[in-house]
């Protein structure tokens, strides 16, 4: 028993040493992004500025709860998430403060920046219509709304309504189409479902490419296809090669996008360092990393997206104000429940 107890004790001490860090120049970051390139960027930032980046990664929803419960004493300096409606929510609940930096404003396309400077976008993905190249001609596709037509009965693949990307997409349509039309659009989708919603974005692509295909069109994020095409798993590459990308609503409201971004917390004790990190992340150098490593679109207009995205061509994106998307999230979820989108 004794050796066990002493081991436990030593481990406890070691744990405290790992957990406690000296804090001369730091940015404390709460983020829901999980990518390797993010870590690369923070390391680069530390190398350049000597500022240490401390990180807690968890879901955006619960991170907001954590910041709120920590209150005035919250150690968080920056809140970063893959979902702009959560940034809007953080703003509305008073846990963000505006940044004061012309560099950021200059770096970022104004479509992707909060009008009051409470947060800035860092990267962007498009939620497009993916189709099986053998069974669907791009000429058959036009808009998200057109996926409600009877020709798509039993052919449309969508993941579940608990998914944040889907919730955001529906929420963006509420201000565009109004509640009633949004409702009939998603009711039309549900009627055309190829199967009960299951799996993640990649599984929708896989279901189209299977020997016994379950559907012909799906709505998913571009960067998953990019990642599948360059995957180390040959089966994933084979799937992605059969899938075509169509940017819907080009003549109308634009293709839905989701933006990841970050804002400085209202209780931050390291505002200068946090601002510096935001400036760095929106700089051309860092934006090139966002674009290159993860198939995301850069938000800095001076940076080109990766070759895969360039080959897909330019597109018009939705320009619904982020605050309106955020305010429509509840309505969107209610509509999804009402049309029985599981």
């Amino acid at each position, binding site marked *: 028993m004794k050796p066990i107890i002493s081991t436990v004790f030593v481990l406890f001490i070691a744990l405290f040493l*790992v957990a406690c860090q000296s804090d001369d120049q730091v940015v404390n970051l709460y983020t829901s992004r999980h990518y390797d390139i993010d870590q690369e960027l923070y390391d680069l930032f530390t190398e350049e500025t000597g500022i240490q980046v401390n990180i807690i990664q968890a879901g955006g929803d619960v991170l907001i709860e954590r910041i709120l419960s920590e209150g005035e004493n919250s150690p968080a300096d920056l809140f970063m998430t893959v979902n702009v409606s959560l940034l809007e929510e953080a703003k509305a609940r008073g846990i963000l403060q505006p940044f004061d930096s012309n560099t950021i404003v200059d770096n970022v396309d104004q479509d992707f920046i909060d009008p009051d400077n409470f947060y800035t976008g860092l990267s962007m993905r498009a939620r497009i219509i993916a189709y099986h190249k053998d069974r669907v001609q791009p000429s058959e596709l036009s808009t998200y709304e057109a996926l409600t037509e009877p020709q798509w009965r039993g052919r449309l693949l969508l993941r579940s309504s608990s998914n944040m990307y889907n919730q955001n997409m529906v929420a963006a349509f509420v201000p565009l189409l109004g509640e009633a039309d949004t409702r009939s659009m998603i009711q039309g989708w549900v009627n055309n479902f190829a199967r009960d919603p299951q799996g993640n974005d990649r599984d929708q692509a896989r279901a189209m490419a299977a020997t016994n295909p379950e559907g012909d069109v799906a709505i998913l994020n571009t960067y998953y296809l990019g*990642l599948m095409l360059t995957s180390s798993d040959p089966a994933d590459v084979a799937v992605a090669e059969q899938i075509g990308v169509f940017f819907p609503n080009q003549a109308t409201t634009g293709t839905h996008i989701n933006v990841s971004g970050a804002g400085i917390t209202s209780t931050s004790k390291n505002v200068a360092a946090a601002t510096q990190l935001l400036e760095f992340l929106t700089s051309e150098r860092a934006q090139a990393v966002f674009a290159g490593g993860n198939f995301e679109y850069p938000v800095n207009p001076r940076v080109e997206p990766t070759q895969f995205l360039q080959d897909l061509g330019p597109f018009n994106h939705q320009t619904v104000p982020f605050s309106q998307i955020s305010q429509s999230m509840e309505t969107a979820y209610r509509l999804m429940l009402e049309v029985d989108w*599981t």
Partner: protein
Amino acid sequence: MLIALIPVLFVVFTPASDEYQLLVETRLQTSIVNTVVLLGGVGLLSALFGSTAAWLVSIYEFKGRKLLSWLLMLPLAIPSYILAYVFVDVLRFSSPIQTVSYSLLGRYLNPMSLTSAIVLFSLGLYPYVYVVVRSFLSRQSATMFDAARLFGVKRVKLFVGYGLPLMRASIISSVVLVLMEVLSDYGLVDYFGIVTFTTLIFGSWFRFRQITTALRFSLWLLVIVFVVLGAERLFSNKKRFAYATTKVRSLRRMRLTSAQQTGVWIYLGGLLLIAFVIPLIQLFIWASQTYSISINPNLGQAVLATLAVALLAGFSILVLTIILANVGRNRPKLMETILLRITLFGYSVPGAVVAVIMLLLFQRLDAAVDVVAMSVFGLPRGLFLSGTILMLLSAYVVRFMAIGYQSIESNYQKIGTNFTNASYLLGKGKLATLWLVDVPMLLPGMASAMILVTIDIIKELPLTLVLRPFNFNTLATLTFRYAAEEQVAMGAVAALIMILLSSVVIYVISRPRKDPRYGR
């Protein structure tokens, strides 16, 4: 835990919102049906796998028995959501299994169906039953089996007629653990698109921003928990039996013919193959594709951190449960029972709910510390406890207390109170009795409790994600980082190390050691 529960109970007195009504109208029925089918299926299947496996390795002697009896615990090391990703990949439409299925059944298997969820949960969680029942059987008297054998009872009949009634209490109490784990799962059911109470809780909390509605659905869960526990009491508590002698002869295992040995190996080996070997192979394939980019310096630190929190929290839970179980045993009143059973609540609601309850709890603790610091030192302390490793460890204790309690308590029931009362009669105090009489007899139960709790903490995700200090990673969070972004292959290296670590922990705790007999 009780303090944490108070806000939950207050919810009953607030009026239900429109959103609650909407969720009730559109989702409640589906989620009740899904939950009942899921619990029923997983309960039966995991009881079947776990109890037959425990029975075979405890009652019979065959080649490789020791190895198998250790290996059979290992599926516990694989988180359910990893199992889900693995089998979705293994059951791709192009796979040979699907071809066979199509030619035999005329259709492809859907790896993301409710049935599939039942099978996967059972494969990953049967070790709860196996571990608890096996530790129970290890303290069985040979007498009644000898009697049965004397009368020439056949093997199957021995299991059904003698084994099942004997093991019933331990099977049921461990199945309760399995069911709680299923109730609190979010990863697998969400991936498969199965609507359960977790869907309702997260929907009302994150989308409608109504904590009270979320808590209201958590109360539904609590009702289900009490129904399950009521059933447990009903089925397992009819007869209380305990030894009256210290001369408990341990089992002499029966030899099997070589044909029978082959049969046992096919069954147990098959179970292991599907629950452990296939996932392991798939993880190795993924790891071989990704190791060059996914091995990073965080891994070493994560191993240390994982081991440290798992052992620390595991140890605390062990000590606390022995105290709790002792209290419950000496005062078998209804109130005590209910209070003790509430520990199960922490284990049956989604981890994120426990996480937020813990955040609020520590916020209040810190406010109290602040008041003291102000008056004594004239200084505000800021956040003293929140965000520290202590917060995470306490959260583990709240969450996994139930596992320790269930496995210790089933041992206590077996021991009865004869020895303890004798010790009191001989003038020993409560603590002395606990240490000299109960603890030695509880050792196998303690070992199994420690295994289950430690492995569960090694795998734990939602609490660790939200409550951890800065730059703190466990193997589970490293694995999940990639899975969350649909790149589960990239997390394979961390997952394999996690499984290896769990296997080592299981081996160290359960390795055969000199057995201190009762009443040395």
